């Protein structure tokens, strides 16, 4: 007999996120409820939560980059990024982001996943450049368009990372695939697996680039 009760925790997360309660609160409540329904005592749940939090501190380390980014913004980094793009003839939001997508995919495929990212490159460089290029095409942006261009900059970083990194042999997900299949007696080398990440990577580039060119067209139209 399968015990379905712990799944209630998932439902709590979905409902909590949909109703836009504070996500930290939603996650903590869902965790505690799931644990209790999974026949753990409250103290055991608390200990599991604390242990998990402590073991995963490395996830939060990335923020140590903010003092550098903030300091450079104080001295005009975003303004400089805009000036640079403003001076390049033929620069459009779509073309700029396509170039960034390609660079991000290639660097990730070489295993250099932390070279770029939202705090490292998107906030200080890519998003201001994309907005500046959009202003060149479109004139002053209304707030919706400004938000759309910024969101697309972040989206481009994610697509580039996700659909580049698996081409690299020693990335965690490839090792996980290898390990999972090995536990069923299916032996594969990382190379055999990473080769099959290439067709999806090409599809990702084509699909997302098409959307970026469409974004360019809609930016040009509303001038």
């Amino acid at each position, binding site marked *: 007999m399968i015990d379905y009760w712990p799944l209630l*925790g998932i439902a709590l997360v979905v409902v909590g996120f949909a109703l836009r309660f504070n996500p930290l609160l939603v996650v903590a409540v869902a965790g505690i409820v799931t644990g209790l329904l999974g026949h753990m005592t409250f103290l055991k749940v608390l200990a599991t939560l604390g*242990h998990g*939090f402590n073991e995963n501190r*490395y996830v*939060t380390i990335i923020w140590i980059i903010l003092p550098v980014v903030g300091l450079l913004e104080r001295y005009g980094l975003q303004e400089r990024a805009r000036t640079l793009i403003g001076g390049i003839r033929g620069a459009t939001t779509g073309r700029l982001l396509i170039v960034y997508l390609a660079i991000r995919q290639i660097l990730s495929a070489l295993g250099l996943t932390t070279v770029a990212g939202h705090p490292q490159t998107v*906030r200080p460089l890519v998003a201001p450049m994309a907005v500046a290029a959009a202003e060149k095409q479109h004139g002053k942006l209304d707030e919706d368009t400004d938000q759309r261009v910024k969101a697309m900059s972040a989206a481009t970083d994610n697509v580039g990372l996700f659909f580049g990194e698996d081409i690299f042999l020693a990335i965690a997900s490839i090792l996980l695939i290898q390990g999972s299949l090995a536990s069923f007696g299916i032996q594969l080398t990382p190379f055999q697996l990473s080769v099959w990440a290439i067709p*999806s990577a090409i599809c990702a580039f084509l699909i997302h680039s098409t959307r970026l060119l469409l974004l360019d067209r809609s930016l040009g139209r509303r001038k």
Partner: protein
Amino acid sequence: MITLHWLYVLAGAVFAGFALGSARDETNPKRWGNTAFWGLLAGSFWFGDFLGDIGNGMLVLVLVATAGLHLIGCGTKESTTHAERERFSARHGNKLFLPALIIPFTAFVGTLLFNYTPLKGLNLIDPKAVTLVLLGCGVIIALIESYAWLRAPALAAVDEGSRLMNGVGWAAVLPQMLASLGVIFAAAGVGTTIGAIVGAIIPSGSVFLAVLLYALGMVVFTMIMGNAFAAFPVMVAAIGVPILIHGDGGNPAVIGAVGMLSGFCGTLMTPMAANFNIVPAALLELRNQYGVIRAQVATALPLLIANILILFIAGFHL
């Protein structure tokens, strides 16, 4: 050997700096809440290993309460005005990019040095911590370079860092909280339950339907758990190996690799993958916290179809 603990000491110091910077910002009506929030995180980085599991659990509850009761906010303090920034930007020119590029450059050169030169054998850095250690080195070098060159006021990095950090707010710890939730989910047996449910609705006879269920299962389960890593072993055990590989004779390399990538399409569409989807929305000051996800759905869905076709064609017909 440099281990993750060195970085935790550094990160604790930076978060203590965020606490200090928040306390200094009088334009933020909730500044003491922010000070407590970042102070607790600094404490977690410095003393987490001495608090014990229950102690850490209590720390998490206080942290969550601070955010959940809306005790943290955001100031309006502007360090330099827009006009000043334009002036600085004109004066310093493109050299301003230099410190920003030091961090990726350090990561790039460091990764090459520690993977492809004799440095690898010296065991200077714990192999599990290499990328993060390089990030930390890059940050320190970039800070020193910026201070030496820009002659900024002593506390400028603290104030500017906290300005950005308070803009992100509670979203900064959401990825870590979700990782802890994953630990509880695993302990409560959520993965096995979902695997059993999926295993019970497998269609028989049609390879295409089985492929479809495998890929969609990866997407849905990834959206629930927030990352494809948790979903993959479950789906492989429920459908991938018994049905697709053993039953229908599919190519295991394709089933494995493209199955994972189908899950990544789910990662693009879920708030549970907070560090990719929610955090950047906060970092870019988007009004809609789901703005990045909205921008990604139209890429994720066609890409999912492409992945299903690759699974079906390359997995069974090549």
